[in-house]
């Protein structure tokens, strides 16, 4: 060691320099922390977004997205949509995205289907996706994920895949598939021990109407491909069958016919989006409700078209299907509870409904 470094004068100078540097580092760290908190508080008070729990490791090029305990689009819509917004933010950065599902204690088919549609969409758009994840610690949720059919479409080892007689695994296609609709009705009839009657026919018709809507309206000319996803689950405890249908198209509010005033508002919305202002003048919830009630909203401008959604509404009103929920863009329609406008866009259209033998009891 040089003699200079042992002198008292140098040691004193060196200590002061280290302290100064440390103070500067801490000051910078604190400033960064405060600015981050300020930004988050501002956004929260503005009620613009919910923040998903995300850990970014720039050095390893990985992002960890923590899925919430209640992993359900239908029951926890806002939080789930914020998570998928985060996912969409990181996809173009070509980092590895890790979905941490360990803390999930409630999982529904709609969340699994939406996740699959997101992965498919981005895979088609950008090629390879680098996605990893783990299983929920909760055994029921883990079993549901393994036997949902989700892993049929993922590159995953065979031991991760299970099959269950209570789950009709996710199917996806681009065309109307009557034989699949028939299988789903047979699955429902078998588990709920129903005879073939008008009510079970309405289930078949609802499924075909959903598929036909995807083919004819949800995608139009600009589409990548008109893909729909469908699964159904029989719950042994509540003795009901849940059906979840998703089309990953533009969504009902974007594909129905709008009048001149609405078209003007839509243009303002587009302009606001370009200016990064989160203002939405068009009420998607209202548009979906009008389409459901049979208002003349078909873009084909033919009166004999656009009967699919009103027919589904009719099946709900006649109690053939229960708990009808439709989510599309910023509209959340829950006919048995309350409709609302969402803060984030739901990409596509999800139709979910239930059949319960008890609720159909007097009607069979």
């Amino acid at each position, binding site marked *: 060691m040089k003699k200079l470094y042992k002198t008292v004068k140098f040691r004193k100078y060196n200590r002061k320099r280290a302290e100064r540097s440390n103070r500067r580092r801490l000051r910078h760290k604190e400033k960064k922390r405060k600015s981050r908190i300020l930004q988050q508080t501002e956004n929260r008070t503005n009620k613009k977004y919910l923040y998903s729990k995300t850990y970014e490791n720039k050095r390893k090029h990985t992002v960890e997205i923590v899925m919430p305990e209640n992993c359900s689009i239908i029951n926890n819509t806002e939080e789930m949509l914020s998570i998928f917004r985060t996912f969409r933010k990181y996809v173009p950065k070509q980092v590895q995205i890790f979905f941490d599902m360990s803390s999930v204690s409630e999982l529904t088919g709609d969340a699994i289907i939406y996740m699959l549609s997101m992965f498919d969409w981005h895979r088609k758009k950008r090629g390879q996706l680098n996605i990893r994840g783990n299983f929920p610690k909760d055994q029921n949720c883990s079993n549901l994920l393994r036997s949902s059919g989700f892993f049929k479409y993922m590159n995953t080892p065979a031991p991760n895949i299970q099959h269950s007689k209570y789950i009709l695994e996710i199917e996806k296609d681009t*065309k*109307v*598939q*009557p*034989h699949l*609709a*028939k299988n789903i*009705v047979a699955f429902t009839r078998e588990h709920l021990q129903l005879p*073939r*009657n*008008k009510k*079970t*026919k*309405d*289930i*078949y*018709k609802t499924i*075909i*109407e959903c*598929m*036909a809507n995807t*083919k*004819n309206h949800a995608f139009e000319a600009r589409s990548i491909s008109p893909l729909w996803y469908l699964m159904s689950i029989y719950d042994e405890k509540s003795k009901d069958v849940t059906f979840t249908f998703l089309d990953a198209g533009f969504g009902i509010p974007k594909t129905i016919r709008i009048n001149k005033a609405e078209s003007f508002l839509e243009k303002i919305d587009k302009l606001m989006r370009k200016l990064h202002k989160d203002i939405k003048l068009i009420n998607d919830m209202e548009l979906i409700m009008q389409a459901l009630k049979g208002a003349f909203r078909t873009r084909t401008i033919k*009166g*004999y078209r656009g*009967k*699919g959604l009103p*027919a589904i509404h009719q099946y709900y009103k006649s109690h053939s299907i229960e708990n009808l929920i439709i989510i599309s863009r910023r509209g959340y329609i829950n006919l048995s509870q309350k409709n609302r406008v969402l803060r984030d866009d739901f990409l596509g259209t999800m139709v979910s409904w239930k059949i319960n033998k008890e609720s159909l009891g007097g009607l069979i």
Partner: protein
Amino acid sequence: MSKVNINIASDFTTTPGARKKADGDFSGEVFREKFLEDLFKIPNDDRIIEITLDGVEGYPTSFLEESFGGLARRYGKERCKKKLKFISVEDNLLIKEIESYIEKCDD
């Protein structure tokens, strides 16, 4: 007056599909072209077409509209009403639904 019988479940399918051929299997367009249009092409053909609707999984609105509403758009409402006769034991409302599609075919 002679009759032509068509049983959709046994002659065509138990799983009717959507509207157009491009939509997928067993569409209304295919049913109309394959089973109905030939019986309407001859102008003075006064045979009654008796269609049995029972035995299927269900009739989506687009299937019915394209089959019968589409037929009425091509050959006229009155001719359709005169020539078509429907039988449905399982669902009486179905016949009224089809008649409304024929009636409102031009809307």
